[in-house]
């Protein structure tokens, strides 16, 4: 499992285009938003920073997971089935790869926030913020893998772009949910991305994550996880 994780990470780390789009894009977004709205009130820059960091992590996790579609298409998974690598080992390794790629995306936005946008927090808050936002990406990493298991090599990019945009916009990562029409605000509260950003803001404020958020996150992780396993089994049976 570790071998597969390292193998995957090494390949991703070598792809400059992948890094540029998944890690670089949210930083650029953050700089633009922050310069437009960042001075609008105390804590505005920090608020934007959490949303954009979450966006970066979500985009990295979904894009990493959806790469599985291409791997399946070229027959790589068939090749892997000829090894003792167990199903859980494969799936866990894939989710971990997404988590590992999400971390620098998250950290980069935080660094830019701290060093160029004047976000100043104490060390404990930074640590909590990183930890909470990173762990909160877990259901999204599972979602990315599900896209990878469902899509073909051709449709993977489109599917992950749609998932990423919907999740980010409706989850309130780009604009506050309160600015969305009422029924969309209700939808937002059912999304893991909304709670991801909420958890980040809770960490800023030093409050504990809401129970509703934890339940929603866990439900997403459970459902996508089960769907991934079902889909993986079906893929194996059909091969």
């Amino acid at each position, binding site marked *: 499992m570790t*071998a*597969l994780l390292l*193998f995957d990470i*090494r*390949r991703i780390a*070598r*792809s400059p285009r992948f890094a540029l789009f998944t890690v670089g894009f949210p930083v650029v977004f953050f700089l633009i938003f922050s310069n437009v709205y960042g001075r609008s009130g105390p804590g505005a820059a920090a608020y934007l920073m959490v949303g954009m960091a979450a966006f970066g992590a979500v985009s990295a996790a979904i894009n990493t997971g959806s790469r599985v579609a291409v*791997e399946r298409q*070229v*027959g*790589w998974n*068939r*090749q892997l*089935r*000829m*090894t*003792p*690598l167990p199903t859980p080992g494969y799936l866990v390794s894939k989710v971990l790869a997404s988590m590992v790629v999400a971390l620098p995306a998250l950290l980069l936005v935080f660094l830019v926030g701290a060093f160029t946008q004047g976000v100043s927090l104490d060390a404990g808050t930074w640590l909590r913020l990183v930890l909470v936002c990173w762990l909160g990406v877990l259901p999204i990493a599972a979602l990315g893998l599900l896209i990878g298991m469902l899509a073909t090599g051709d449709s993977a990019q489109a599917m992950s772009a749609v998932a990423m945009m919907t999740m980010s916009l409706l989850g309130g990562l780009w604009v506050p949910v309160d600015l969305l029409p009422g029924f969309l605000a209700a939808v937002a509260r059912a999304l893991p991305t909304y709670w991801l950003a909420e958890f980040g803001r809770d960490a800023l404020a030093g409050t504990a994550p809401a129970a509703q958020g934890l339940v929603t996150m866990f439900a997403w992780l459970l459902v996508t996880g089960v769907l991934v396993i079902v889909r993986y089994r079906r893929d194996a*049976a*059909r*091969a």
Partner: protein
Amino acid sequence: MQQTDTVVRGAAVSLQGLVKHYGGVRAVDGVDLTIAPGEVVALLGPNGAGKSTTIDVLLGLSTPTSGAVTLFGRSPREAVSAGLVGAMLQSGGLLEDATVAETVGLFSAVYPKSLSAAEAMRRAGVAEFAKRRIGSLSGGQRQRVRFATALASDPDLLVLDEPTVAMDVEGRREFWAAMRAYASTGRTVLFATHYLAEAEDYADRVVLLRSGRVAADGSVAEIGARAAGRVISARVPGVSAAELSTVAGVVDVQSRGDAVELSCVDSDGALRELLARYPQAMDIEVRGAGLEAAFLALTSEGAAR
């Protein structure tokens, strides 16, 4: 082929009454096959004869509709997990953005007792381009990388599905040299091929599949003899290949101008009818068929029926 009990029990490969249907298609339709440890067996047959399906089921990549499969007395999945089986699949892919060393290294890392990546790469002859990415390799080089991944577990059984398909002459020669070195250590090899020369040169035994069944099973010499295939060459002016193909016992006609070559299952009968129907036939020669003609005769019997 009659097998003793001990051979069946200790068999490297045992397929009993194997059937695999895809929808209404009977891809494999009752295959019995026992391969003893140390045998090098070629699986031959025309496209659609069930070679790849048999191999998929054998490796546990698909489940049989009915019948039993064991490898070294275990289920395919168990045998694969234990690293007893190495496979080079036709449709198994490699990732273009990984290097050769990374790919072979991954396979070497996931097996319980394995060759080092360096050793697997050396044996498969890919060490000199270990640092290159798969995407920059030729088709033949990629095939050899697959061979290296198949060797990674130091398997007792090697299963190869059309292994030399993208290789040039030199690559093919090197590949078989490596394969021979592996087989000479008493390991078992099963390979599917449509190059008859490869079966003739490298296999101890040939299993011929036709329409999902075993049409013939034996040494190259035995199969050549069993087919009793002969080739009649002659000049038959004014007669088309289509007309000649209706002569009883003829299974294939090759013509160039008046000169024709008739591949026959029953050359005596074909010759009598040929002379009776076309007395103008001349320069007649009858020769024994090699494995190629035997292959043709055995695999087209079904179509003639």
